[in-house]
């Protein structure tokens, strides 16, 4: 794998995380539990789609094959998407959506803080711009984890169930392979293993306030970064890709 290929893959992974989570969140539009949250979830989706666009613009530049961002976003096969399994998980209810977001936001914040120091100026600039949004997302998801965890008996039960289901996808946040090794060596990317502990501490701190617990069974799932997904992604993609597949090669 050349440096160029590794860096391309590295950026596409982050872009895919934003894209798939943005797509999931946008399913909430018009169906939120309260108008203010409808706006908040759509706003986060909008930020994530914006981040996707910036990251994919950089990726296609690096690749240098003259592709556009929409080819990357809409015209790959399922196994070519390299997002985390966590972000493709269905919304289920507001509790699942918030827990999924919280796990992701803590990770994103730590990663993008470090990426501000990337030796690639463009990536550093994207990280810096995105970080402003991510801090707000994390504040929003943390507050809701606490509110739901320490709200009523029902909300506690629901949000704990979400934690129990989604916990198995959290180790994958720190997945690393030859792509990461290559970009870390060159100072383009960041070594996420350095802040795994910080991630865990942040989650535990919020969970303590929320009276939530980390499940005892810690068997972990991974595969997203290599294109092996859960059953959920195929359906998400068939919906998302519908227009581009049904009407190929057109401007919209």
């Amino acid at each position, binding site marked *: 794998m050349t440096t160029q290929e590794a860096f391309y893959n590295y950026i596409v992974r982050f872009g895919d995380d934003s894209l798939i989570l943005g797509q999931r969140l946008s399913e909430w539009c018009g169906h939120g539990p309260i108008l203010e949250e409808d706006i908040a979830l759509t706003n986060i989706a*909008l930020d994530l789609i914006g981040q996707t666009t910036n990251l994919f613009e950089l990726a296609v530049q690096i690749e240098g094959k003259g592709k556009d961002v929409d080819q990357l976003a*809409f015209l790959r096969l399922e196994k070519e998407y390299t997002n985390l399994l966590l972000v493709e998980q269905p919304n289920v209810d507001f509790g699942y959506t918030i827990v999924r977001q919280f796990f992701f936001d803590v990770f994103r914040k730590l990663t993008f803080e470090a990426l501000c120091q990337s030796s690639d100026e463009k990536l550093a600039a994207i990280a810096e711009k995105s970080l402003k949004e991510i801090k707000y997302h994390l504040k929003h998801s943390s507050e809701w984890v606490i509110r*739901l965890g320490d709200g009523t008996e029902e909300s506690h039960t629901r949000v704990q169930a979400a934690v129990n289901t989604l916990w198995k996808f959290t180790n994958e946040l720190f997945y690393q392979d030859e792509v990461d090794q290559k970009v870390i060596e060159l100072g383009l990317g960041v070594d996420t293993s350095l802040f795994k502990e910080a991630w865990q501490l942040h989650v535990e701190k919020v969970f303590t306030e929320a009276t939530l617990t980390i499940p005892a069974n810690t068997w972990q799932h991974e595969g997203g970064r290599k294109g092996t997904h859960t059953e959920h992604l195929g359906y998400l993609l068939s919906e998302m890709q519908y*227009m581009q597949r049904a*009407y190929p090669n057109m401007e*919209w």
Partner: protein
Amino acid sequence: MSTKNIEELEKEFQAKIDADIKIEPNDWMPEAYRKTLMRQISQHAHSEIVGMLPEGNWITRAPSLKRKAVLLAKVQDEAGHGLYLYSAAETLGLDRESSIDDLHSGKAKYSSIFNYPTLSWADMGTIGWLVDGAAIMNQVPLCRCSYGPYARAMVRVCKEESFHQRQGFEIVSLLANGTPEQKQMVQDSLNRFWWPALMMFGPNDDNSPNSAQSVKWKIKRMSNDELRQQFIDVTVLQAEMVGLTIPDKDLKWNEATGHYDFGAINWEEFNQVIQGNGPCNKDRIDARRNAKENGAWVREAANAFAEKRKKKELTH
């Protein structure tokens, strides 16, 4: 306590309106004025909220990242409009929750256009172009409405609506100049939305019972038929510009009146849709009701948590 009688108060009230002085929440106002405004503003708020659904229907299928982002932002604006309008209605003593319950029970109405389905991507263009276009025609005069909070909310709403209208027309114009499939898609969309868009202005003036009083109170500043005509005159030219055909064989320019003549509107369809028998009435209300019911535990949790925090603060 004022010793003035109702007649004097009404006279002063009308004098203020005639002098274009805004009525503010704490000012005296006739009960009928308050009720008319509450109905109008809450219907408008409901239209924004229900109106999120037909467009929300295409966010997950938007054909490009740019279109997905623009559509997300647009639907978010509509939710925001709903919020300002519910707040404006609250200044008259109508609380948001009970107003929403009236929507769900069918007691309160919303714009009939949102009971039509969005069947293709082109509908995202057509809705911006025609539906937001018609909404602007209706709403620009309301920026001068006599009730302060409503007029001020409308200033902001209109700015955003005008952006929505432009982005809609941009989609329409791109498709109209696109491939044969795209052209067919957008013409089909215009065929489905044209007549329902004309119905958005409400019944003909001679069948609009509340209009005269509303004009006198400056809650309404132009009649339904005047607004409808203005909309047609502008929109026909835009359709011609991009080479689309308005689905009305009776449409023709009238030199004498300086306006377009147009065919008969199917008022029976309008009445049926208003009464709940449109293609999507049930789906729209079910979606709103489900959102409320499925979110009940979240709202309860937020309240319970706020209570706990308040108690904690008191004991510390």
